[in-house]
């Protein structure tokens, strides 16, 4: 048992660090949750891609470096430590791409992945509906069979950055007569500028217009844009759901970098003699280290040929609550300045804690609410009986 990196991993880290030092913009980009910021972040994706840093874990033929899980973790540690911009392509890279690698055709991979890697085409997700959130399998949007493809209809909502994105992927009810709600769903990809798609931006808690509602009326999707077998969409989507909850959505680098900044903030600008604050800073640091070591253990298990299943629900609850605790603590350390939005004139000293705080509040909700994750932990990891969700 060890925590040592090999010479190749050290070299990979050094290369990543050097590249980031030379390329990360000195001034933070405008928020990626705005139209202006979205465009700036798309440009950053292009920069990453030009030197093959946008999708390090993908095979080289699709623009990646075939990096191991451990190398990916190293890249992420360096990425967040360098204060590099948020990833506007994250929905495509973290959610759609793993699905295509597992269930897509070679043609789909060749067509979809390169422009995803370069930021030329940015993807939004279309899962939730007004009446289908945690109970996603009850979704009502339809896919109706027509010659050569499907016609989509219905309403998708709470779709992050869909107001600015190019395409979307989601589940639609294609076989309404199936015996169970989660059977009879089909996984499709569609352009957001297709005929019949109406995108209505929705302001979020932070006031940014980055949510959107997608109204779909007879939107034609050719057969080549269906992933997996029609009617098997639930299985296709769930086989990679662990990616979103667990390892690949929120890497420990994000939290170790934030914990480092938090400890610095505490040492430099807070009253270090107040035990109540000191204990919370310590808990955030301990949590970040725990998440990092937990992930190293998972990466080691994967490298040894093991698999991660329902354990990804442990990750999801842990990082989402850690993220909030870290940011709440920072705002409390900032005292009266903690109330300032990051765009306030007096706020530069903030270091982006306010935006980070608002962002963190969504963590326990998206990627499967923490209530659903706790059900999964209790039923699949502890073996407790299924019950009504009440």
């Amino acid at each position, binding site marked *: *048992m*060890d*925590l*040592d*990196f*090999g010479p190749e*991993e050290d070299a990979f880290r050094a290369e990543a660090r050097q590249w980031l030092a030379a390329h990360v913009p000195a001034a933070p980009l405008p928020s990626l949750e705005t139209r202006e910021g979205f465009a700036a972040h798309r440009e950053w994706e292009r920069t990453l891609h030009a030197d093959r840093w946008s999708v390090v874990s993908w095979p080289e033929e699709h623009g990646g470096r075939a990096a191991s899980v*451990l190398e990916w973790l190293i890249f992420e540690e360096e990425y967040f430590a360098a204060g590099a911009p948020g990833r506007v392509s994250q929905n495509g890279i973290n959610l759609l791409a793993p699905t295509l690698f597992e269930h897509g055709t070679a043609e789909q991979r060749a067509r979809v992945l390169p422009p995803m890697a370069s930021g030329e085409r940015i993807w939004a997700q279309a899962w939730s509906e007004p009446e289908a959130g945690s109970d996603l399998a009850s979704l009502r949007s339809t896919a109706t069979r027509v010659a050569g493809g499907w016609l989509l209809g219905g309403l998708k909502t709470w779709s992050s950055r869909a107001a600015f994105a190019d395409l979307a992927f989601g589940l639609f009810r294609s076989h309404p007569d199936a015996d169970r709600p989660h059977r009879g769903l089909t996984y499709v990809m569609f352009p957001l500028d297709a005929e019949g798609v109406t995108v209505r931006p929705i302001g979020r808690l932070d006031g940014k217009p980055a949510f959107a509602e997608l109204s779909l009326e007879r939107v034609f999707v050719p057969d080549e844009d269906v992933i997996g077998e029609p009617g098997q969409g639930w299985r296709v989507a769930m086989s990679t759901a662990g990616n979103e909850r667990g390892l690949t959505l929120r890497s420990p680098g994000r939290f*170790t970098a934030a*914990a*480092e900044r*938090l*400890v610095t903030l*505490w040492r430099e600008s807070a009253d270090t003699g107040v*035990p109540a604050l*000191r*204990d919370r*800073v*310590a*808990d955030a*640091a*301990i*949590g*970040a*280290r*725990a*998440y990092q*070591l*937990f992930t*190293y*253990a998972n*990466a*080691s*298990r994967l*490298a*040894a040929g093991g698999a991660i299943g329902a354990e990804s629900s*442990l990750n999801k*609850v*842990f990082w989402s609550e850690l993220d909030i605790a870290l940011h709440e603590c920072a705002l409390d350390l900032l005292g009266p300045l903690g109330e300032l939005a990051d765009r306030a004139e007096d706020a530069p000293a903030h270091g982006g804690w306010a935006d980070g705080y608002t962002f963190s509040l969504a963590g326990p909700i998206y990627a499967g609410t923490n*209530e659903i*994750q*706790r*059900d999964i*932990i*209790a*039923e699949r*990891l*502890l*073996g*407790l*009986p*299924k*019950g009504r*969700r*009440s």
Partner: protein
Amino acid sequence: MRFLLDDEQSEFGRTLDRMLSAADTPSAVRAWAAGEHGPGRAVLGRLAEAGVFALAVPEAHGGLGPLPVELAVSFVEVGRHAVPGPLVETVAAAALFGRLARAGEAADAAKEWLPRLADGRAAVSLVLPGHGPYALDADAADAVFAVTAADELRRCPTYGPVQPSLDPARRLARPLPAGEPVASGAAVRAAAEHAADWAAFATAAQALGTGLALLERTVAYVKERTQFGVAIGSFQAVKHRLADTLLGLEFARPLVFGAAVALASGSPGAGAEIAAAKVAAGEAAYAAARSALQSHGAIGYTAELDLSLWIGKARALRSAWGTPAECRARALDLFH
């Protein structure tokens, strides 16, 4: 990097688990609490035979160590089976004498005690500066040692009256140092700090095991116990509480083994890693005790049910060898 137990280490844990399951530790714990140490010492003897204490003793002195990863594996099982006695203190004494011997101090005492600690002939208690005033199970130990605030290591032939603990199986007494110091000075201070790290580390592993046992027993109970016509484990209020209990334990586990790796490599950051593990494992075990009691209801509040043996221990281990506040202060050095 391979941050995973190897097959041999995992098998060592399973062997200890089987051995302790067969040893009827709950009866030994109850006897220990009543001052009858025989059955408990027999369990300690079997752990020694399996090599557990030798893991903390250097090879030059009849041990196998130091092997902190294997020691963590052992102490998780010690906690899971609620083994009574001054086990952590024996490990810490081994670290103390081992470090003194390496510094060329207290050679006679090291030669006298280390081989006996390794093979189980002796179990000892220990008090270190900042971790007093009580020696655990002084009445069951073969010797009690104390390092004083003046950096003197003394053997304590006598001790005060036994003070009951919230864990009936932990018997606390104030040692009364007497006689000539075994060693003194800066080397003793450094060895005492090293020993305190090992004590906190072993306690963290023991707490993790304690929490795991509490959760295992509670999961089994809520599957069996029915109310309103269904197993209470099907209620979301119960499920979510136990899910949180598992979360606490599963994120404490990598910190415990991370501390083991840091100790094994002699990393200067080991103190912060140990402190982090101690906070996380202590809090997780304590939360497991609270969840276990609440999920069992009134029967959990009885001394008859063996669950009580772990509930009291979880509370005691939270403060033993480093309070949560002290450990949090040290854990701040994880990031700097």
